[in-house]
C-alpha cells in the first residue's frame, strides 16, 4: 500500500459542534473512497456516537479518521479521551449499560455496524476505541 492510498484526518473533540464536524468529515471521506451511501452513513453515525461519548463523559479528546485505499479498502476510526475510563467494558458492548444519557445503546449498536471494534480503557486514565469497517 503506498502512502498516497491513505487519507487521514485528526479532529479535536471538545463540544457538540465538534461531533457534527467529525461525523460530517467521516461521511465525506467514506463516500469519497467509494463506500455506498448507506455504509458511509453508518460510519458517520458511529463517529457521532463515539465522539458524543467523549463530549458527555470526559473533558475532551480526539478522533482520528483514516481511509485506507488500495486492494483492501477500509475505514478506521480511533476515538481517544483522558476521561474516567469504563468500568465494565463487556457490559457496554452488550448494550445493557447506560450511565448518563442512555448511550450504552450507541456503543453496542456501533459494534454491530463495524467489522472490528476494540475498547482499551484504564480507570482514571482514559479510553481509546479503535474500530474499522471494510469495503465489500
Amino acid at each position, binding site marked *: 500500500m503506498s502512502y498516497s492510498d491513505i487519507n487521514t484526518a485528526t479532529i479535536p473533540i471538545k463540544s*457538540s459542534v465538534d461531533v457534527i464536524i467529525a461525523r460530517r468529515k467521516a461521511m465525506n471521506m467514506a463516500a469519497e473512497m467509494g463506500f455506498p451511501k448507506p455504509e458511509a*452513513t453508518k460510519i458517520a453515525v458511529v463517529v457521532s456516537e463515539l465522539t*458524543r461519548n467523549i463530549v458527555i463523559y470526559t473533558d475532551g479528546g480526539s478522533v482520528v479518521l483514516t481511509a485506507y485505499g488500495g486492494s483492501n479498502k477500509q475505514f478506521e476510526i480511533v476515538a481517544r479521551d483522558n476521561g474516567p475510563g469504563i468500568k465494565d467494558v463487556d457490559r457496554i458492548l452488550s448494550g445493557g449499560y447506560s450511565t448518563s444519557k442512555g448511550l450504552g445503546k*450507541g456503543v453496542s*449498536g456501533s459494534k454491530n*455496524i463495524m467489522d472490528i471494534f476494540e475498547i482499551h480503557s484504564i480507570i482514571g486514565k482514559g479510553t481509546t476505541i479503535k474500530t474499522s469497517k471494510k469495503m465489500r
Partner: protein
Amino acid sequence: METTAVQKLENLLLVSVPQDMTDEDVILLRRQVLQKIRQHGSRWVLLDFALVDICDSFFGRFIYSMAEMVKLMGAKVIISGLQDAVVETLIDLGLTLPHIPAVLDLDDALALARSTDATSFGAMASIRENVVWDTPEAKLLANRSEV
C-alpha cells in the same frame, strides 16, 4: 434553526428537522415544539426528516421523548421523510420507534392526520374514498363500510 423549522398549518405543526443539529439544538427544537403546541392548540406534530442524513441514537431518543411529551399535551407525532440510508442505519444500530406512525412523505403525513381527525369526528363517509394506506384506521373504516 430558529422559528423557520416549526410552522403552523391549521391544527398541525410542521417541523422541518434541520440537517446538522447539535445536541443543544435538538433540545431547543423540542422545547420550541411544545411551546407552539400550547400557543396554537395544535393536534398534530409532523416531524419531517427529508433534510436529515445522519440520525444516531441520541436523535432516536429525541424523537421518542418528543413523541411522549407531545402526547401529554393531547397531540400526536407523525414522522415523515426518513431517507433510505437513515432507515438502514437506525435499524442496524438497534433503534426502533415503536408506536410512532411513520409515513413516506408530507402528503401521506397530512392525509393520515386528516383521516384520523375525520374518524374521531365521525365524518367517515367523506374520506372513505381517499383512504389508500394500510393503517388500523383505514382497516376500521373499510370494515365499517361493509356493515
